[in-house]
């Protein structure tokens, strides 16, 4: 057995919501029996983005805000890999917002986990895009990732979890990873992950979270219904959690190469000149 990089101890404060995601990720990957060498975790910058260091996994520590672009690149180059991107709300919804919006459109079969604590923890508690008005002088209304995600008409899997309920989180991450591994497209899971040091919201969020599956009209295949339910729940001062969109489409036929018909994709295809010579000669002969 070759010795590879060993996980290190988390840098997180005791009680950090990110521990919930770490535990749920481990369980979901184990339950799905994903071999370690086939699992890639692209981490963002911030407390949550260091999660890859604490897992036995292929870790790719990206630039601040750019983890989705890198994760999409990994997946498109080798669709056989299971690719997870994980970072915080500042990383994803501030500096990375452009890539966030386009990830839904690109619809590569990767899982994106945002650990939302409504603050910049690592830089010691500044307001983030999801901070409530009044938090650290914040005067801007909080960004609502789920409503935004639902507004983009692409067949993505969309869910929200709460670190206070790791069991539900494990099952949602499992579903999201299955969705990816079936090549059905992009999965977005926002986890409400309290920062015990700068924004300890455990108690508040425990009172306010509402599993949308318990609502009478709940239908995650109907984008319209789910948008209304999420909006109403939010306006009533509750925090909607659960599976928000489970697309009807059987399979995604978008960007990444299907591993059928003998296609290997950019990484595994044979690039030797010898093998490709007749095709290369034909290509060059087309020059005037």
């Amino acid at each position, binding site marked *: *057995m*070759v*010795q*590879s*990089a*060993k996980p*290190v101890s988390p840098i997180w404060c005791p009680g950090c919501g990110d521990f919930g995601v770490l535990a749920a990720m481990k369980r979901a990957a184990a339950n799905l029996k994903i*071999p*370690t*060498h*086939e*699992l890639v975790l*692209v981490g963002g910058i911030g407390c949550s983005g*260091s999660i*890859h*260091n604490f897992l*036995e*996994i*292929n*870790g*790719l*520590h*990206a*630039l601040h*805000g*750019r983890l989705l*672009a*890198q994760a*999409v*690149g*990994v*997946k*498109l*180059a*080798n669709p*056989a*890999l299971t690719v997870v991107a994980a970072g915080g709300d500042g990383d994803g919804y501030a500096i990375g917002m*452009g*890539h966030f*919006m*386009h990830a839904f459109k*690109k619809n590569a079969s990767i899982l994106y986990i945002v650990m939302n604590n409504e603050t910049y923890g690592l830089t010691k508690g500044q307001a983030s895009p999801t901070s409530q008005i009044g938090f650290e002088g914040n005067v801007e209304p909080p960004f609502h990732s789920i409503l935004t995600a639902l507004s983009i008409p692409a067949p993505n899997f969309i869910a929200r979890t709460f670190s206070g309920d790791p069991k539900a989180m494990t099952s949602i991450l499992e579903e999201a990873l299955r969705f990816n591994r079936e090549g059905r497209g992009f999965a977005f899971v926002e986890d409400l992950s309290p920062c015990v040091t700068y924004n300890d919201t455990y108690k508040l969020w425990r009172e306010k979270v509402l599993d949308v599956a318990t609502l009478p009209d709940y239908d995650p295949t109907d984008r319209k219904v789910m948008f209304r339910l999420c909006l109403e729940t939010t306006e009533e001062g509750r925090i909607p959690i659960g599976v928000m969109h489970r697309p009807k489409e059987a399979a995604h036929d978008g*960007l990444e*190469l299907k591993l059928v018909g003998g*296609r290997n*994709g*950019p*990484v595994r*295809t044979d*690039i*030797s*000149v010898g093998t*490709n010579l007749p*095709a*290369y*000669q034909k*290509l*060059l002969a087309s*020059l*005037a």
Partner: protein
Amino acid sequence: MTTPAARSTPLAETAGPGESPPSHELTDLSVMIGGQGGDGTLTVSDLLGRYFRKRGLYVYTSRNVLSRIRGGHADASVRASRDPVAAVKSRVDVLVAFDNEAIEMGKVELEPHGFVIYDSTTFRVDLPNSVGFPFATLVGGPLGQPIFKNTAAYGALSVLLGFDADQTRSVIEERFKRRGGEALEKNLKALEIGRRAALAAGGVANRFSVAPGEAHDMILTTGNQAVALGFVVGGGRFFAGYPITPATEIMEYLQRYLPAFEGVVRQAEDELAAINMIIGASYAGARVMTSTSGPGLSLMTEGIGHAATAEIPVVVADCQRVGPSTGQPTRHEQSDLSHLANLGHGEYPRFILSPSTPEDCFELTVEALNLAEKWRVPVILLLDQALCQNTSTSSRFDLSKVHIDRGKRLTATAVAALQQYKIYELTEDGVSAVAPPGTPGVWSEVTGNEHDEWGHVSVNPANRVRQMKKRMEKMVKARDDLPPARVFGPPDAKVGFIGFGGTSGPILEAVRMLETRGVPARYLQARTVYPVPVHEIDPFLKTVDVAYVVEHNYTGQLARLLRETMPWHHAKLRSILKYDGSTFRAPQILANVKEAA
């Protein structure tokens, strides 16, 4: 003096003065075509270029277009010569005008022996040796649309310049066959209309033809197309980019070429995404590239520094244009060199390669892919607008010279024999062996944070020094692996030139002109510009009394790099600079060379 062909005149096959052979032959011809954007000036230039290439001539076409889709003046020029030329000729022999602006611009450059043809549908010209043809009207009736006037102009020129009729026609067939039946048929008709009009009209007293050349089995292409082909043949299989002039064609060609080879091309939401997508794909084990120009390069700078620190191979083609900011998107400059040499915050290695012809673009793109993977260092392909978008004759690209070197890439078998898999292992040459993710039995941590050999984040001072040296020393250790300079001219010449990229064409022409004046000169074309190849340039400078560093920027960026790395040659270096957005013409270089007087 203008003699527009009367529409009522029957356009007979015979008896026109145009049919008599041209009075004399030129060995170096320049045709300028100008009109409003959308008039099809670039098509005329393309058709003429293809014809001359078929006649065994060296061809160079350039364009002067505005950054807009339609309207505004646009012009193009075609040069055909029996000598290898890769620069715009200083004077114009034939001017083809679709608007008055073309006349105003072109007439000052027109040779005394030159002539003008123009579309007399909308304007009149009062110049000696000018003839108007109502091209738009002539094609508008039979073909239903005036847009074929450009092909008609090509047809008229083919008669006036004594072209071979069959080859004139086969150029049209080649050019329009991809667009299919109707486009081809109408263009063939437009060709005939133009030919007949010229046969029927008289009035151009000074006519000439071009002597055929001996440059056979050559191709006519642009640097951008050559880079795209080099990428495919060099094993590149993942490309992400964002549209930007003058780099976009690289992405467009690859969108056509790559899918057949299981490659992926993605247009990203911005250059930040483009560079990070290729970083991800390269980490996964694909050969990757992106292409951009100044404004995009600024955004990619963040990612290039990350790739260097994380030791993820990337190739970035920078098609330089006039900067900073939006600058002049369609115009030529070489002003990114200083930025690239000092790219980014912090310190990291990078190789900057500079090809000068399409063939060189092809070869150095393959080399860039090899170097990036072998040394796990970002490689910049330094291009410029003229090289990227102007067409020039080139030898056919040689597949037998293509060699793919993936460096210390670990196979599954090699991995199984390891005790430990350290992705940033310290080694003699600074390069660690890497297995792409998915290789059974191993996994790794890859990061842009400073890290130890395992990829774990580290602030240990001794480790920082070790990893910095590992990365930075690659610039020294790779020296003999980097593309060598090319030196032209006799070794005993005392006048030297140094340049790079698209400027090589006019410099070589200037060197030949000096030779005919009895002043031998040498030219060193730097193909690696960073790290500065002191081992090549120092001996070169020792052989000459003076070296003119010719480049398209205000501050003399290459000259500055040379002075910085070889201060002992300070006194020998003289800058010849141009930053007006257009390329050097050989006489403009000579005007700054004291020894030429």
